[in-house]
């Protein structure tokens, strides 16, 4: 017998604190796969953000710097400029990246900082208990949109992969999902490509991953996974928005 699937080496052999069915764990695994694939675990410095993924360092067996909420791209800029020989990635949620951290992600992209940015869009503030996020869908109920997001008052869900793609410094911008084996394979490829861009010094690479938050969506894991397909993907189209060669 030959092992065809097992835990990547960059991922520690520990249980996560994520809720059942939460796809943060899966996205972690894909990132670890990418590090394994390029053999860069020993050179990689991860930059953790504040959100349910704050414990990055408990799961990845790499050096990690914790950034204040929203500031991972600025911290990563400091890290990568100081250690250009290392492989650097950020990992942020939608509250972190598309609300408080809007400036930092846009300017890191615009400067063409040579690191890999992972963006987990689960249309909610997971860690703080389910408030409205910049990506919360119209009509979606949350702790702070009890009647559902009202675009007239709360504004529109932000399509970050498109916004980032529009900046001149961005080399690669893509949106993927992890709600089906097919999408997972595509997501894994996109994440690898985003690391490849960095390793080839091509500049800023951005991967938006649609993810589920069963807990704050008030659904079980299967229903949440289904919602990614039926509600999120129609709004947040999957695709490659920029790919500089």
């Amino acid at each position: 017998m030959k092992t065809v699937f097992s835990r990547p080496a960059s991922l520690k052999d520990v249980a996560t604190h994520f809720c059942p069915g939460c796809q943060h764990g899966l996205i972690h695994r894909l990132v670890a796969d990418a590090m394994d694939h390029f053999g860069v675990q020993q050179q990689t410095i991860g930059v953790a953000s504040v959100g349910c993924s704050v414990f990055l360092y408990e799961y990845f067996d790499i050096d990690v710097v914790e950034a204040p909420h929203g500031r991972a791209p600025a911290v990563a800029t400091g890290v990568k400029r100081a250690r250009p020989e290392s492989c650097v990635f950020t990992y942020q949620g939608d509250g972190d990246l598309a609300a408080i951290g809007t400036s930092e992600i846009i300017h890191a992209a615009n400067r063409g900082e040579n690191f890999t940015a992972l963006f987990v869009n689960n249309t909610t503030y997971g860690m703080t208990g389910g408030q409205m996020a910049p990506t919360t869908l119209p009509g979606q109920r949350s702790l702070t949109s009890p009647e559902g997001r009202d675009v007239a008052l709360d504004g529109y869900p932000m399509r970050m992969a498109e916004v980032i793609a529009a900046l001149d410094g961005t080399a690669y911008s893509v949106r993927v999902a992890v709600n089906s084996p097919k999408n997972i394979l595509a997501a894994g490829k996109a994440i690898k490509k985003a690391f490849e861009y960095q390793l080839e010094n091509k500049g800023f690479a951005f991967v938006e991953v649609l993810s589920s938050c069963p807990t704050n969506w008030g659904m079980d894991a299967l229903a949440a996974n289904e919602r990614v397909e039926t509600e999120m993907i129609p709004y947040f189209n999957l695709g490659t928005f920029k790919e500089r060669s």
Partner: protein
Amino acid sequence: MSERQLVAGNIAVAMGALAAGCRHYFGYPITPQSDIPAYMSAELRKLGGTFIQAESEIASINMLLGASACGFRAMTSSSSPGISLKQEGISYMAGSELPGLIVNICRSGPGLGGIDASQADYFQSVKTGGHGGYRTIVVAPASVQEMYDLTILSFDLSDRYRMPALLLADSLVGQMKEALELKPYTLPSDLPAKEWAVTGKLWRSDQRIVKSLYLGEGELEQHNWKLWRRAEELKEKEQRSEGKYLDDAKLIVTGFGSAARIAKTAVEMAREAGMQVGFLRPITLFPFPEKAFAEATVSCKQLLCVELSTGQMVEDVRLSVARDAEVAFYGRPPGTGSLPTPEELFAQIQKHYGKGA
């Protein structure tokens, strides 16, 4: 002794940082410290270092956090409103035990204010404007030479105590030019290696994690006590001050930075007038030179604290002096035309002299 050059205070900070081996600068424009990034942008890229004009003060402090987490000497500079914006980042750096230099060439305030010399950021610097209870080193240069020397000292102390350092000055000391002597710098040989710095694991068995999150039972409390002990050690070992005419003083004039310079001339005037007036200037604001104040007030029970504000350092002076010493205050909150003259401070000395004891 190397040749003396005529240099502005702000430039001396930049030169001091380069001398101390700082090769990473992150900043955002703001008057009256713009000479620093201007100098750094010209010099650092030549040296193969990093100069980034960030999109904001918040980005700058977090870039500093990142570069410092890698184990490098790094800095940012700004002025009052910009420093307010850095408070969260400073708290994170302190919580993550990261060294690094934050230069504040104070503006007058509050709010937008103006660019005149001001000392109204004393509380923010010394009592720490960020959340969560921490301390940072705070130095207050009063001359161009000190702008250079204390920049270097800040990097050394900051590395030794794994604590961010603030350099607090204003447009008087920042834009004034004086003779600067560039002393050769060597890294203190007893500075601990930065074994906490992220590098990529490089086949180390242990992960390095730079963080401020401690959720285990009792962990955060212990972490806070550890930071506290370090601050106590700093207090024990690193208090610095300048004293003059203290032995026979009947009145001691105190103040820091630019106010102290003006006060010093007033003290000289008083001495010339035959008055027994002493001078005591904190050089480190944190640790505050409590010992010097306690000592000086064994015999002298009358103090006059001068600040370019409505009164902030005066609280630390009161907390540091002998119980029966009286501390008077004279303040000129900043603004156009509000810099006190030595003559004005001399008049204050005359007013308070002989009132004590």
